[in-house]
């Protein structure tokens, strides 16, 4: 291929250019392993000049560029497409500077999320967003997906914790977007743009002081509905927990089996509620919360860092835990208004029976973000298709309840069809035109994130009227 020849001619050292069936295999998918495709070539640049050279060559040959961080994404955002080049930014792993006084750090995109917090811990600071994959996922990928995590209820998503980013456009131009910019929200536009608008090469993140005090309450419930209602009651009381997570029986068992952290196996639902701040406010919130949680069947309180992270560990390892008990699982990411939590759970349970596929539910309950994990076996013919149909039913329900098909994992290739239900043709058309502004030849991660209009037409997808259920006041299900 002439592009490989050109890359080898221009780029030094040559060993950062990877090609051939076997060598490219590790780049054939991201965390969504049901979809695989080998790229034509992979480049792992070590400096900005090399990125620019690669983009120039791709532009010349009209080769699509798939930017990749750690490949932990769950929606296929980094899955290669036919005849594409994967631009892996794993070597951009330096923290360039830390400004303790202004609580900012300038980092390269390949820095792993957790490394930021580990590095600035000595200053009493940390980086708040903590996706469950934080030990592996990169900050560049976090910006590209606008990642959340278990603490974003109180501390916000990636977008709320980024001060500025620098990108390289497909034409090789470097542009910085910052929170202080006059004009429209370009910094916000780049967040969650899934590698379709530019290559993120530098991020200035905001740091937060580590809380003086925190407490984690673990509450077991006999009834799932009681657990869901407690979530609403805590928020209604004016308390914003640092994290508010819910798990169903299946997820509790899987997580306990995997992490052995002491979750109550007899409970049908589990609530993990972390309160943080200064000692006085934690104490106040704790009193109120314990009162609300008096309907729980079991309560355990942890107030020192080690105990707290141990209890979180079960929740954070819920995905691999489920992976251990089932050959495959399919993770959904819909969000719904919190008031429909219990209804949604009942619906999922009905669908689970209908499709005869087990589901483990873990939720960022505080912000209405659900992660039902559908258990299946890809080796059984037709089971993946059935699973995807089940998943689509859950996403359609999310839209119907007035929510969204994805809260933090992104659309990628996985949720292209689901996008047809959430948006009208005219809205999708605006998205396509926005991409054209940044990438006129559509070379950056093409075909991802936004479905072509004909795809929706062929699917026969009727855009669901968001949240406009007739007579919403009537209790359903």
């Amino acid at each position, binding site marked *: 291929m002439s592009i490989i020849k050109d890359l080898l001619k221009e780029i030094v050292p040559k060993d950062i250019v990877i090609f051939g069936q076997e060598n490219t295999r590790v780049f054939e998918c991201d965390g969504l392993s049901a979809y695989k495709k080998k790229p034509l070539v992979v480049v792992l640049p070590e400096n900005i000049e090399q990125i620019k050279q690669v983009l120039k060559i791709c532009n010349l040959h009209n080769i699509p560029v798939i930017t990749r961080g750690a490949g932990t994404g769950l929606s296929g955002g980094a899955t290669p497409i036919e005849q594409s080049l994967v631009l892996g930014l794993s070597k951009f792993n330096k923290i360039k500077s830390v400004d303790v006084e202004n609580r900012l750090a300038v980092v390269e995109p390949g820095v792993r999320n957790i490394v930021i917090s580990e590095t600035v811990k000595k200053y009493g600071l940390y980086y708040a967003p903590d996706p469950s994959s934080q030990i592996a996922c990169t900050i560049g990928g976090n910006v590209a997906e*606008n990642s959340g995590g278990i603490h974003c209820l109180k501390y916000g998503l990636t977008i709320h914790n980024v001060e500025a980013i620098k990108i390289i456009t497909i034409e090789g131009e470097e542009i910085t977007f910052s929170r*202080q910019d006059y004009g*429209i*929200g370009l910094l916000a536009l780049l967040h969650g743009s899934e590698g379709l608008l530019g290559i993120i090469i530098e991020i200035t993140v905001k740091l937060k002081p580590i809380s003086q005090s925190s407490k984690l309450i673990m509450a077991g419930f006999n009834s799932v509905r009681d657990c869901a209602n407690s979530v609403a009651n805590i928020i209604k009381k*004016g308390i914003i927990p640092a994290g508010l997570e819910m798990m169903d029986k299946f997820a509790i068992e899987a997580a306990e089996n995997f992490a052995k952290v002491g979750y109550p196996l007899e409970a049908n639902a589990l609530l993990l509620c972390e309160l943080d701040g200064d000692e006085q406010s934690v104490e106040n919130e704790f009193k109120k919360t314990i009162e609300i949680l008096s309907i729980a069947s079991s309560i355990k309180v942890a107030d020192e860092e080690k105990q707290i992270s141990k209890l979180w560990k079960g929740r954070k390892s819920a995905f691999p835990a489920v992976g251990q008990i089932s050959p495959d699982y399919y993770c959904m990411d819909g*969000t719904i208004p919190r008031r429909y939590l219990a209804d949604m759970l009942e619906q999922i349970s009905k669908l689970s029976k209908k499709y005869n596929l087990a589901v483990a539910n873990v939720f960022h309950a505080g*912000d*209405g973000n659900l992660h039902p994990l559908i258990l299946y076996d890809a080796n059984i013919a037709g089971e993946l298709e059935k699973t995807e149909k089940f998943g689509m039913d859950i996403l359609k329900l999310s839209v119907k309840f007035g929510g969204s098909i994805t809260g933090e994992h*992104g659309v990628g290739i996985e*949720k292209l069809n689901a996008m047809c239900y959430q948006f009208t043709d005219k809205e999708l058309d605006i998205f396509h035109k926005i991409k054209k502004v940044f990438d006129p030849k559509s070379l950056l991660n093409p075909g991802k994130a936004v479905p072509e209009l004909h795809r929706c037409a062929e699917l026969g997808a009727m855009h669901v009227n968001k949240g406009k259920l007739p007579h919403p006041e009537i209790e359903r299900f």
Partner: protein
Amino acid sequence: MNDRITQLQKIVKESNSICINSEFLDYEGIVSYYPEELIITVKAGLIIKDMRKELNKNNQDLMFFVDDENISIGAAYANGGQDLSDSVLGVQIIDGNGNLLNFGGQVIKNVAGYDVSRLLVGSKGKLALITEISFKVLPNFYVEKLVKPLKQKASSKAHKVIEQKLKQVFDPKGIFK
């Protein structure tokens, strides 16, 4: 369909030039407010003072610094500001072709499609007519220490070029002045 919205769409479709001003302030009021969800959806003409009055009844408040309570929430959105942007969850707009479009939503986490609801913050009424906006709100206790945001930096040439092209996406005929 809402009568006034249909009427506004008609106005946009039939005009060559629109300056979004107080004439549009009659599209005002609260569309929905769920205190336990920490989310409020309002029509753009709603005066901020009236919006806060409603929030305060539930011991909640806006998450951004308000300089002048007597302007509409739509005007504050059009003027921009990073803190305001941080609390935006969704918008309903009428684009330059008169199409009624929805972006974002009434949930706290949502990464489906580009973040148009925050992109249009600071658009000064030049990209689209904003009709409804959803915001995240917080209990009073958490918003006590709001300060006036720093003055924004002037746009670079690259930003201006992108803004100009994005205007053409939303308003291809250039009617919003």
